[in-house]
């Protein structure tokens, strides 16, 4: 039993944390958010150079990590820095490309890892609510190729993408796990339109509309109709990434709040001397430690069999969902009025913490999933 990270992982964390401290401070981050792009290709390139993307993939796929704790390390740093560049979407798309494993897919993955291309997974739709089986975007055979019609929702930093991995229904009805397929769709494909907008937690996203988009046969990633297990696996990586990101943001919010309790004076004394506030802060600390344990459990289970792995992932998402929102709300409350202001970094951590619960399934979604998996009734897709 050993809860210390390896030297390599500690060095990576140090490198990323230093980058964030020195080159991605709050003012820089806010400037990026306020820019027209809401994202920095320069930062993306820099993250790639520092190994933040390569750490997410094993050597066999062109990276140097890929284990649960590699992913947790990278995203905890991203959470501490409130990084708005689309690493989660790229991680999930990259996992799909790695699973598909064709020469073209591997070539694109290499470009992704090098920071030269941004490829993002797009699967959520207006009515999916995190459940891939609810995907309605249709892909029909058209000659030798495919024709895609439908829409995708809130694709993070979609305007920056060079290509999307789009999940589509090739057979079956909405609600079926079978009948899903994945397609590689370049950003400039005719018929694909984006409506971009800002996000309340920083950066931008877009709604994707596909109006009878014609794709060649090679666009299909993997086998038709059987993408569900591939997606579950990729989304699992994304869930782990978000839980670790949340943990990093929680730590930052906790530190800021603790510092405020020590320095803010009322009634002639630091407000941290009041027991009502001390107990709330103590409870917060305890919850953050529990959240950290849940992320450790999830990271350790990433290579395990399906039930164990997916339950640990859902358990972590349930935990950081609950704790992240608690930390956000308590941090704002403990700061008082200043916590309500845009100028205070804490407020932006709080927004990110709450919004993480709106990505890849919220607390309720994952609680239901945790229960279903425990009964063995959940989706039989994939290996045990």
């Amino acid at each position, binding site marked *: 039993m050993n809860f210390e990270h390896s030297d390599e992982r500690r060095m990576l964390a140090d490198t990323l944390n230093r980058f964030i401290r020195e080159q991605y401070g709050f003012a820089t981050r806010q400037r990026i958010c306020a820019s027209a792009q809401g994202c920095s290709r320069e930062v993306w390139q820099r993250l790639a150079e520092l190994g933040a993307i390569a750490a997410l993939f094993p050597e066999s796929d062109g990276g140097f990590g890929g284990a649960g704790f590699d992913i947790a390390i990278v995203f905890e740093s991203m959470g501490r820095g409130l990084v708005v560049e689309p690493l989660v979407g790229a991680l999930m798309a990259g996992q799909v490309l790695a699973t598909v494993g064709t020469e073209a897919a591997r070539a694109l993955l290499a470009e992704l890892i090098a920071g030269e291309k941004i490829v993002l997974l797009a699967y959520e739709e207006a009515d999916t609510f995190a459940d891939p089986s609810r995907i309605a975007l249709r892909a029909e055979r058209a000659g030798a190729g495919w024709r895609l019609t439908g829409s995708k929702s809130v694709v993070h930093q979609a305007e920056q993408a060079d290509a999307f991995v789009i999940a589509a229904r090739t057979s079956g009805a909405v609600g079926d796990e079978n009948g899903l397929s994945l397609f590689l769709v370049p950003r400039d494909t005719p018929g694909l339109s984006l409506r971009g907008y800002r996000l309340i937690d920083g950066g931008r996203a877009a709604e994707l509309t596909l109006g009878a988009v014609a794709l060649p046969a090679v666009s299909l990633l993997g086998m038709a109709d059987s993408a569900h297990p591939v997606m579950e696996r990729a989304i699992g990586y994304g869930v782990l990434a978000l839980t670790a990101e949340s943990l990093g943001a929680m730590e930052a919010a906790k530190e800021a709040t603790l510092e405020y309790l020590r320095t803010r004076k009322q009634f002639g004394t630091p407000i*941290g001397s009041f027991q009502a506030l001390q107990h709330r802060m103590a409870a917060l600390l305890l919850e953050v430690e529990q959240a950290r344990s849940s992320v450790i*459990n999830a990271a350790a289970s990433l290579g395990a069999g399906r039930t164990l792995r997916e339950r640990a992932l859902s358990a972590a998402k349930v935990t950081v969902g609950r704790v992240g929102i608690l930390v956000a709300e308590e941090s704002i409350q403990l700061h008082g009025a200043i916590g309500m202001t845009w100028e205070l970094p804490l407020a932006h951590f709080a927004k990110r913490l709450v919004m993480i619960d709106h990505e890849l399934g919220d607390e309720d979604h994952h609680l239901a999933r945790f229960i279903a998996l425990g009964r063995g009734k959940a989706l039989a897709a994939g290996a045990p």
Partner: protein
Amino acid sequence: MDLRFTPEEENFCTEVRAFLAQKLPPRLSERVRAGKRLSRADMVEWHAILNSRGWLASHWPTQYGGPGWSAVQRFIFENECALAHCPRIVPFGVNMLGPVLIKFGTEAQKRHWLPRILDGSDWWCQGYSEPGAGSDLAGVTTSAVHQGEQYVVNGQKTWTTLGQYANMIFCLVRTDREAKKQEGISFLLIDMRSPGVEVRPIITLDGAHEINEVFLTNVRVPVENLVGPENKGWTCAKYLLTYERTNIAGIGLSVAAFEQLKEVAATQMRQGQPLAEDPLFAARMARVEIELENMKTTNLRVLAAASGGGVPGAESSMLKIRGTEIRQEISSLYRRAMGVHARAYVDEALDDGADGPWVGPKEAAASAAARYFNNRKLSIFGGSNEIQKNIIAKMILGL
């Protein structure tokens, strides 16, 4: 980062399981599993079984007859015992007084008292709390006046767990009324058969006789029963509390209780389906299961941080708070699972040898609600959960 136990620890785990499979009398484990009351003889019997293997005093170094275990080994041992429904080890002698004597006692005190703890010659109870000194423990007023070769002790101790079985009590007594609160306290060992000691039962809300009041009136105690220097008892008291809070999370107990909860949730019916299938009940169960899984890892993280045989510091306050909350929640769900029958208070069902007929589901038989109410104590004793938050605020957060 590696959450697995080492091969040596895995072997130890196997060794403990094998021992329990062989030596734990089914009569005792069945009684514990069913939530029945244990007699003094039951507890003495279990102590003797553990002692014969050298595993009774898990905190003690080998030179005093302990097994010299690491923190992780203790965690494994305590978990396995809980999962096997062992009677609990009565902690006052082995886990509380023992470490204090080893740290602060004279050679003569160690030679005399430690073997008697192991072989069961003495049954110790804890004389800390008083009617006026609960969370504010340093407010004890029981006085000990030095007269020749004796102390004359007057005062009242309370919430004395299993004091009705004890022949010895370790007490915090005030030996200097003028000194600052913490500085006038001494740590004294008192023979309960001395004239002037009176034990009166306190019946708890579940109807159990677990705790007592102990009245001390002109009790004469030989000076050699003083542990540590006079007026330095607070140091002993604090040291003891760190041991009191070790394994305070009770992970094994929670896991065992959760397994029992799953069993009843699979058989108890609501609206034509097992409770486990009821979405609301299943959600309550899932939440506590997730917290428990997180807690296991948190506990191991604290142990790993305190490795080297030490006891966890202020972090144990976190384990205490969440560990007891989880245990309370599980007994709350167990009570809920019994539906209407939770109200049945069939006292004799808790007695040894009771064999029905039961009122309602067998598992309910009077113990579900009683256990729930009894477990309210968890967030109160060993330093209330609010005191634990004070400790976290001061020691970890620096507020």
